[in-house]
């Protein structure tokens, strides 16, 4: 067609990104407890947003500065927010899935919380 091959590559990257966003949302619906939902949701949505903006760099080459800046912001903020969220959910003792096999954080967390609050 009239579009160049680079633009079509970019469009397919955006499509793959949107599929990842969809899969993340599907995981949010299907997973059994909070921690699994955090894991699927934020991982897949980070990759999906990354691929979307990266595809837009191919389609609109003159916008690359702001798009790269946005990608850096996403890669910096999204894992931090999921970490803080998971820690808060552990802290208020949200019930885990009943088939959970092992809780490695549990023993360390007790000691850690006690020690650090004494230090403050």
């Amino acid at each position, binding site marked *: 067609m009239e579009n160049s091959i680079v633009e079509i590559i970019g469009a397919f990257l955006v499509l793959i990104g949107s599929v990842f966003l969809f899969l993340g949302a599907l995981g949010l619906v299907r997973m059994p407890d909070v921690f699994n939902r955090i894991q699927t949701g934020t991982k897949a949505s980070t990759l999906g947003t990354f691929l979307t903006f990266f595809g837009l760099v191919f389609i609109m080459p003159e916008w690359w500065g702001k798009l790269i800046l946005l990608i850096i912001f996403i890669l*910096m*903020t999204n894992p*931090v927010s999921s*970490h*803080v969220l998971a*820690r808060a959910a552990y*802290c208020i003792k949200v019930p885990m899935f009943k088939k959970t096999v092992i809780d490695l954080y549990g023993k360390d967390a007790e000691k850690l*919380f006690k020690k*650090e*609050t004494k*230090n*403050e």
Partner: protein
Amino acid sequence: MVKNAFIFLILIGVAMILVNLFAGFTGNVDLGQIANHYVANGPAEVGSANIVTAVVVTYRGFDTLGEVTILFLSAAIVGFFLKIENTDNTERNLKYTSEILNTASQVLVPIMILFGVYVFINGHLSPGGGFQGGAIIASGLVLMFIAQPKKEIGHKLINIIESISGVGFVLMGLAGVLFAGGFLDNNVIGLGKFGTLFSAGAIPIIYIFVGLKVGSELTGIALSLKENQNEA
């Protein structure tokens, strides 16, 4: 049952009023007389690429002064009512913040403040302006309060910045009266080349003052709320 039927009747009445409104609705295709004047003469008279900025700062600059005054009043009232009376000096036992959040905040807070400054300096070229930039600066400082609860910012510094920028805003308006057409006229130091950073006369200077003022006021509100959590 009777109550539900009553609510249902009210809903039907509201729906009938709305149907009449929607049926008579035709979109405003043409601009009004005043808006037409602004769009036609704005770039030549004010020299700002963003028409909204031209209207907010120059044509309706007096309204902006009123908004800033309202914000100042609300910040002062919050500070007055949430006075700290922590007599027994008990330290609060906060849950510690994690290492990851701490490091991320050290990277992100300067970037957010820089982005806020970018938004209000570029107010005459891109969307945004003093109010939005000030809000972004205040949210960056709030992120710092959350991630590092031990860090102190004095109320005094915030008050000084707020007062200086408020006085500067009014002085720029008076300079408009002396050297140009009227209060808050921006044609004080020449319009410059259209569409560059140093253009549109006094608009960037006024926006710097507005941004600093809004940012320090919102930060002051958040800070007094945070310090007030100590009391039982």
